[in-house]
C-alpha cells in the first residue's frame, strides 16, 4: 500500500476498497504481471471469433450434459453408494469374482 499511497491511490482505497484500487493501479501501470495475465485472458475471450464462441458453447453444453445430467442420473459410484464400509465392499467384490 505504500507504493499506492505514493502514487496517490489511497483515496480510491476508501471509495472502492483494495481490489478495485489495485486493479486501477494495474490498469494504469501495465507492466504488472498479474494485470498482463488478466488482460491476456480477458482480451482473448472478448475478441474471440464467432466460430470459437460456438465451440465454447458446444463445450459448455457437453459439460452440462455430462456433469449435470449423465453423472447424477446414471453414473454413481456403485461400491460407495451400495456399501457403507470397506469390509462390505471387499466381501462384495470377492463374491462377484469367485462366483462368475
Amino acid at each position, binding site marked *: 500500500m505504500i507504493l499506492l499511497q505514493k502514487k496517490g491511490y489511497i483515496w480510491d482505497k476508501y471509495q472502492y476498497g483494495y481490489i478495485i484500487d489495485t486493479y486501477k493501479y494495474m490498469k494504469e501501470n501495465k507492466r504488472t504481471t498479474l494485470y498482463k495475465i488478466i488482460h491476456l485472458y480477458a482480451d482473448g475471450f472478448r475478441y474471440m471469433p464467432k466460430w470459437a464462441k460456438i465451440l465454447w458453447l458446444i463445450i459448455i453444453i457437453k459439460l452440462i450434459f455430462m456433469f449435470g445430467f449423465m453423472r447424477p442420473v446414471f453414473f454413481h459410484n456403485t461400491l460407495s453408494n451400495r456399501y457403507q464400509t470397506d469390509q462390505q465392499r*471387499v466381501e462384495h467384490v470377492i463374491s462377484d*469374482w*469367485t462366483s*462368475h
Partner: protein
Amino acid sequence: MFDNLDLSLVNWSRLQFAVTAMYHWLFVPLTLGLSFIIAFMETLYVRTGDEKWKQITKYWMRLFGINFAIGVATGLILEFQFGTNWSNYSWFVGDIFGAPLAIEGIMAFFMESTFIAVMFFGWNKVSKGFHLTATWLTAIGSNLSAVWILVANAWMQNPTGMHFNPDMARNEMTNFWAVFLSQTAVDKFMHTTMSSYILAAVFVIGISSWYLIKKREQLLAKRSIMIASIFGLLAVLFTIQTGDSSARDVAKVQPVKFAAMEGHFTGSEASPLILMGFVGDTETAYIDPAIDPAPVSPVKYRIEIPGLLSLMTTYELNSYIPGLNDYLYGNAKHGILSTEEKIIRGHEAQQKLLAYKQAMAEDSPTADTLRAYFQDTEWLASTFKYFGYGSYYNSDSALLKANITKVIPPIGLVFYSFHLMVALGFWFLLLFIVMLYFVFKDKLEHQRLWLYASLWSIPLAYISSEAGWIVNEVGRQPWTIQDLMTCSQSVTNLGSYSVMITCLLFGVVFTILLIAEIKIILRQISKGTKED
C-alpha cells in the same frame, strides 16, 4: 458358473466402453501430433522472421484449437464408467491406477490450459520467444499427459510391480518404476505417440493437398507438406521400430493375443509370417496337437513368408513359435501350461482367497496359514498368477474342457485389424517419401493422383489408429487385466437396460455434437488463411 450373470450386461458394458474410448481417440492423436508440427512451424517463424510462417502457424493452430475443443472432456466419460460399470475392476486396481490418473489430471489441466491460453491469446501480447516456449510446452505437456493413461493401460496388459493384499482384495503398487518403465509401458507410449504423429502428418498433408487441387493457399500447402512429410517420415520409421519391439513383448506377455494377431493356430519351427489371408471357421481349428499335430489352418488364401515370424519374434529363423493350440492344450516340450491347468490353478487361488476371508470372519487360526500363501512369491507366480482363469472352472471335467476356448479373443477382428494397421503404416511410409520427393522437386501441384491419394489418406489414418486400439483391446479379451481378471468379473451387476440407455444417449448426443464440430472445422479449412 455364469448362471447369475447377465451376459448382455457384459457386452453392453464392453460396447459402451469401446464406443466412448474410440470416440475419445478420434481427437487425441491429432492433438498429440499437430501440437509438434505447429511448434516446428513457429520455430521457423521465430528463426527466419518470415511473416508467412507466422500465418501458416496460426492457420494450423486454429485447426488444432477446434480439434482440442471438440475432444475436451470426452475422456472423462471413461472415468465415469470405471466407478459405475466397472466397479469390481476399479476396486481391484484402485491403488495402481489412482496415482497415475491423478498426476495426469493435474498435469493436463495446468500445463495445457495455461500454455494453450498463451498460444491462442498471446500473439502480439507476449514476446516471440515466450510465445514459442508456450507452444512447445503445450506440445510436450499434451504428450506427457498421455503417458499416465498409457502406463495404466500397459499395466492391464502386463500386470507387474504390485502385490495383492488379500485383506483389502486389491492390488497395491510395490515398485513404481516396474510399473512405469515396464517394456510394455515404454513400447505402448512410444508406439501410440509415434503413430499419432503419423495421423497428424497425414492430416496436414491431406488438407494441404486439397488446397493444391483447388489451386489455393499454394505457399501454405507446399510448406506444410514439407514439414509434415519430414515429421511423418521420421514418425513412421519410429512407429515401425516400436511396433516391432511391441509385438515381441506381446509374444512374451500376451502370447494368445500375439497368435491371434498373426493368425497362428498351430505351433511350428520356422513359422511363416502371414501377410494376407481370410479367416474362415475357427471353431474346428482348435485341436489338441497330441491328436493332430498339423491341422488345416482356418486362414485361407494366405500369402506368407516362410520362417519370417520366427525370425522377427526371436531373431532365429528356425525357432519354435507356439500357436493357439499350444496355449489351449499345453506343450510340455516347450514348457507351456494348458488352459485347463491354468483354470484349475486359478480356481485354487480363488478358493484360497475365499477360505482366508472365511477364516478371518470366524477368527480361525488357519487365517495365518492362508495369509502366508499370499506372501509366498512361488505360490503367487505359479498359482495366483492365473486368478482370473478360475472363472472358467467347472467341477464337471467335460464342461471345464469345453470352457478352455473362452480365453481366445475374436480371431477375425484382431487378425484383420492388425493386418490393416500394418498395411496402412507402410502406405503412409510410401506417401511421405513420395510427397517429400515432389515437394523438393517443386512438382507437387502437377501430381493430381498423389494429391487425391493424400486427401483420401486422412480417413485411412484414423482407421489405422483405431485399428491399433482394436488389436490392443479386443486382442486382450476376455481379460481386463491379463490372466488376473476377466470382463465378466470386472463388470458391475447393473441392469443391462441402464447401460443400454446411457450407451444410446452418448451415441446420439455425441454424434450430433461431432457433426456440428466437423462442420466448423470444414468451414475453417474452406476459409483458409483469411482470418489470420
